[in-house]
């Protein structure tokens, strides 16, 4: 029932797919390796959180479209050319770990990151897989389950002057927005920062086009107070309560310098900005660091354009160096500033890409194997977890499911992944129904 993408054209997958293709999902692995089983076994063993939070914040770097594991962190240099691709591998600063030659800065940073080579869920559909890896729960492509950031926002609340969940520049998206708050409601959607590499970058609506005098600001707020009284006569209406809450928050954010400062990338010096790379990805990583510094609990850096169905090497020739520079700068900068110890960084796409290079010199979707990076908050750098076979087709060791990743994130933040949240209808739903922390990250 699964479409094997080896012989498909780019068009078939990224433009011509049916929105119902998602129904053709499910088969886990050709080898009969079955993930859910492992998960429930761990659940039975009682994987309850046994320690306090490891991290204050989580920083997710999402490589939307699916970065090719063959051409980045899981190279198969001994395989035939149509599998191994064009690139050579280079040694890293961790003995035995080799990465793509286009990742020289990451090669010198591998001692700070743990590498999971066994991302696996078996789904080859962008929207379905993205919502799955971001929420830890399988559902329709439209996002039935709240994404991690939304759950974190729900659990930690709006503590400072900056929203608890921020996406830079925005949420992952192919045709529609992914990684949304689902039934948790609009209150917990990510706050979108926009592209920090844009000229005169400003977060939309955070400051007024023409600054107001304090007395005018006061007058506006006091007039608003005098005329806005619908909530006095209506009780039990969640939209009204949310409106009231965000009305206050919005005013605070607009008036206070804290929020503006958190987003003010101009406050970084030229050297730092150049260190991350003067492109959308690099500056997004830099802004993410600023946001973590100002107390944002969950930051998504969304980097799209990894869906290389055709001419993958031309594409990666451009993308990998930007990724290398930005992500390595992020890890090292966080480390230098002492932030890495309580920031959990993870980097993943929604899936890996097909082992065989197709007739358009591209690689297609591959939900059976992919690579994930973790760093910070107690993660042991230099570690390699899981493995794929010699063609990078299937996971041969330690499959890691979307639920495992989310479980790891929640537990790192001190959120009980089995906690029951109430849907608007009052139905109790566990944050995650399955999954267990990838404990090897810490040992």
């Amino acid at each position, binding site marked *: *029932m699964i479409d094997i993408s080896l012989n498909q054209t780019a068009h078939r997958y990224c*433009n*011509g797919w*049916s929105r*119902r293709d998602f*129904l*053709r999902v*499910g*088969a886990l692995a050709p080898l*009969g390796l*079955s993930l*859910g*089983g*492992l998960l429930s*076994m761990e659940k*039975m063993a009682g994987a309850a959180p046994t320690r306090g939070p490891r991290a204050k914040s989580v920083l997710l770097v999402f490589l939307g479209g699916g970065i090719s594991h063959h051409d980045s962190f899981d190279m198969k240099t001994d395989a035939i050319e149509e599998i191994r691709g064009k690139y050579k591998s280079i040694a890293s600063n961790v003995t035995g770990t080799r990465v793509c030659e286009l990742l020289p800065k990451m090669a010198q940073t591998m001692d700070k990151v743990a590498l999971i080579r066994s991302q696996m869920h*078996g789904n080859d559909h962008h929207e379905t897989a993205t919502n799955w890896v971001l929420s830890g729960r399988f559902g329709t492509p*439209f996002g039935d389950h709240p994404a991690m950031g939304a759950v974190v926002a729900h659990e930690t609340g709006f503590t400072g002057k900056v*929203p608890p969940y921020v996406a830079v520049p925005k949420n992952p998206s192919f*045709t*529609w927005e992914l990684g949304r708050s689902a039934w948790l*409601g*609009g*209150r917990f*959607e990510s*706050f979108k920062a926009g592209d920090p590499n844009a000229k005169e970058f400003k977060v*939309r*609506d955070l*400051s*007024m086009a*023409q600054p107001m005098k304090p007395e*005018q600001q006061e*007058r*506006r707020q*006091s*007039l*608003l107070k*005098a*005329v*806005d009284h*619908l909530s006095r*006569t*209506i*009780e*039990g*209406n969640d*939209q*009204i309560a*949310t*409106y*009231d809450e*965000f*009305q206050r928050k*919005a005013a605070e*954010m607009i008036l206070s310098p804290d929020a503006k400062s958190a987003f003010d990338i101009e406050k970084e010096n030229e050297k730092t900005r150049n260190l991350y790379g003067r492109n959308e990805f690099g500056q997004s990583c830099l802004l993410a660091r600023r946001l973590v510094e100002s107390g944002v609990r969950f930051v998504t850096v969304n980097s799209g354009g990894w869906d290389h169905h055709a001419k993958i090497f031309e594409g990666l020739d451009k993308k990998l160096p930007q990724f290398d520079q930005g992500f390595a700068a992020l890890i090292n900068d966080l480390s230098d500033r002492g932030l890495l110890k309580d920031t959990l960084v993870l980097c993943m796409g929604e899936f890996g890409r097909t082992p065989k290079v197709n007739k358009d010199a591209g690689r297609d979707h591959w939900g059976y194997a992919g690579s994930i990076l973790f760093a910070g908050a107690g993660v042991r750098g230099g570690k390699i977890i899981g493995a794929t076979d010699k063609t990078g087709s299937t996971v041969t060791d330690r499959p890691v499911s979307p639920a495992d990743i989310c479980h790891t994130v929640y537990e790192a933040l001190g959120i009980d992944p089995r906690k029951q949240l109430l849907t608007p*209808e*009052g*139905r*109790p739903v566990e944050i995650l*129904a399955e999954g267990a922390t990838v404990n090897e990250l810490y040992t």
Partner: protein
Amino acid sequence: MIRFARLIHRFAVVPFLLAVGVAGVNLTHAALPSKITRLIVQPSAIELSGAEAQHGLLVTAVGADGQLSDVTRWSQFSSKSPKVIAVSTNGICRALADGRAEITVSFNGKSEKIFVAATNSALTGPPSFRQDVIPVLTRFGCSAGACHGKLAGQNGFKLSLRGYAPELDHEWLTTEVRTRRIDPASPANSLLVLKPIAQVPHQGGERFAEGSPAYRVLVDWIAARAPGPNTNETDTARLEILPGSRVLRVGDRQQLLARAHYADGRVRDVTWLTQFFSNDEATVAVTPEGVVRPLRAGETAVRAHFQGQVEVIIITIPYENKVAPGLFVAKNNLVDEPVFAKLKALNIPPSPPCDDVTFVRRSYLDATGTLPQPEQVQGFLADPRADKRARLVDQLLAGPEYVDYWTLVLADLLQNRKERDHDVRGAKGVRSFHTWLRAQVAANRPWNELAREVITASGDVVAQPQIGYYITLVGEKRAEESEITDAVALSFLGTRIGCAKCHNHPLEKFTQDDYYHFAAFFSRVTMKREEPAKGVTKLITESKEADEQKKQIVSAEKSLAEAEAAAAKVDSANKAETDKAVKKVAEQKKRLEDTKLQLVKVLAKMPSITQPRTKKAMIAQPLDRTAPEFKPGDDPRAPLAAWITSPKNEAFSGAMVNRLWKHFFSVGLVEQVDDLRASNPPSNPELWRALSQEFVAHGYDLKHVMRLIMNSRTYQLSSSTVPGNAAERRFHSHYYARRLPAEVLMDAMSQATGVPDKFDGYPLGARAIQLPEPGVASYFLTLFGRSDRVTACACERSGAVTLPQLLHLQSGDELTKKLRATDGRLLALLKEKDDARVTREIFLSTLGRPPTTAEQSAFNKALAGGGARDEVYADLFWALLNTKEFAFNH
């Protein structure tokens, strides 16, 4: 065989023992009515068939106040003929010999008698694969979607999801012998038995205990050499849940009893094999054994699933309010009867009616998506006529804004959008579908006619712009691979059948066969796309095969003509040449005839689609499995449209009524609004039925239903809550205030400030509710959640309130510009020197009401505070546009 017969009697006892066990701990007789008038025993008679067949009883005590209580666990049971029918202390009747026995049930001094008959009591046999084994594997979760029922199975063991394919299950269970899954030589050592009792490691844990009824079914089935599904066995025709719908109180417990009715008339107590679920676990809990426990006031359905059959009962738990009965009396029309009856049953006080000033704004926004102008508000307030509300409703439903707004609503439903990769229409085509739709709304086309025109659209896209529906949803795909099947079911029937594409629907009767039967209606839809120079895109209703044959015929005719022309030129004296030419003509004639014959054959085929699992051809057939009436050559969509829009099709009328209800009340009678199914009943079935009947009886006139809704007392209740009704969001005790839809809010801002918006590609002044498709760029509309129309799901439109929305309202550049615009309302108003009049106008144009005294004085104070007059007024305007009263309909 004897052993099996001996064991089977233990089965049904278990749930009752469990129920009694738990009950004994928690419950006291205090929960029971103090005075009992009589007992009800259910079922009223039982016919047992087969060796040691069993059936449970439910005993209900009727209190003096009419309150019903489950007293089964405290009742005494005795059999007058214990050698024929034995009855246990918890009311399980068991057949011992053929015959009939009188069973006496007593509780608290009252007693009741029923008769139990037994036949075939000597007839023993192995468990049935279809009727015993599959239900066990389903009931205990083995074939659930998270376990072996998923597509890939689990650890090499695969079952069909909730047993939808018994023949495959039997094959997988018995022929996939890689393991000791089935061991007839030693049944109890089969993995099929050892795993679920967790005797060997099982990732799914222990599903049932060794020696339990489920265990015995599997062991006995294996011992009988695992017989396969018996094709003579009838399927369950109907599931019955006793005692049926009930009014309960928090603290009550009610055991349910599930009875399977088979086509051959047999009835079986399948409580222990039935899965029970609550539709709202926060209101009512139900145990796997079928014990219902109300948790808080409200109402919800409890679903029972057995072998593809779904049955629901409604559990009602009245609120503990003291409500004067007079509050439920006043009614305007047929909408109010069921609404107030429901409020009364639940003991929820309705809010008082809203005032005129609220009503005028509310109705303008709901019916026309447009704010009333100040003079319209004042005109309405000044109107002394008693029926002015009804007059306003008529006036609004006749206006041009109504047409704009409802075209938008229907365009969402029909997904008019520019499809990025297979839309050959371009912006022009999308607009022409919109224009067509607008003309239908303007003419108040009955919904059944409009639906039929869209469903059966064919011809070319210029003459028939509604073909756009198929261009978006089918495009260049084969119809059965496209979204059309799911979309038609969702849009016109409010029914989600997508699940059944891959497996039987988990919550409905729809099977995979049903899905492909339904999809086959579209199997003849083919989009013919020509080079622009050669002509426009057409929808033809021929299979690709027939289309191909027709091309062949044209080519054969051409070749024949050529051969004949060549023959005419041949010199008749030249015999060899002549023979050759004659032969060629004959060949071409033959080819043409063959091709024509082939076409006849192709055309004679019934429209069908191959079901991927069974590889069987599924001929077009509606979801209720009635036989469609069409001849092979017909476009099957015509009978499809006839079936969909038939007055007998409750889903068609009901789905639209539900959408209309949600539009005006923000909560559908069925929620989600497009998830109609037996297992998701409406919050008020009587109301739903009454409105559907009205809709059908009035020729599917949308305005008729809107008029009924808007003139009802229910619609005209205040949005203010009163003590005792703030917590409920389903029964319409008050009007639920909600944020305005994106387009309506955007237009309201423009109208209030007097500064129109400019959308790319549209003239200045085109309103957001007039935009034909969601591709028109607008930060505001995206921010406030317009529908992208990617699917027909109503969930695509979002009413959520988010932080960026509030930031935008407070500091967005557009609003600032609108307040300062030289040709805007504010600057024009400021030319007036009378402050009281200016203030009043600003209030009327934003909130649709004059200021209160307190608001007036707060403003006067601000004005006296020293700021420039125009600035203070700009701030007031800003404040008003930022109120909930402005952004919400209330």
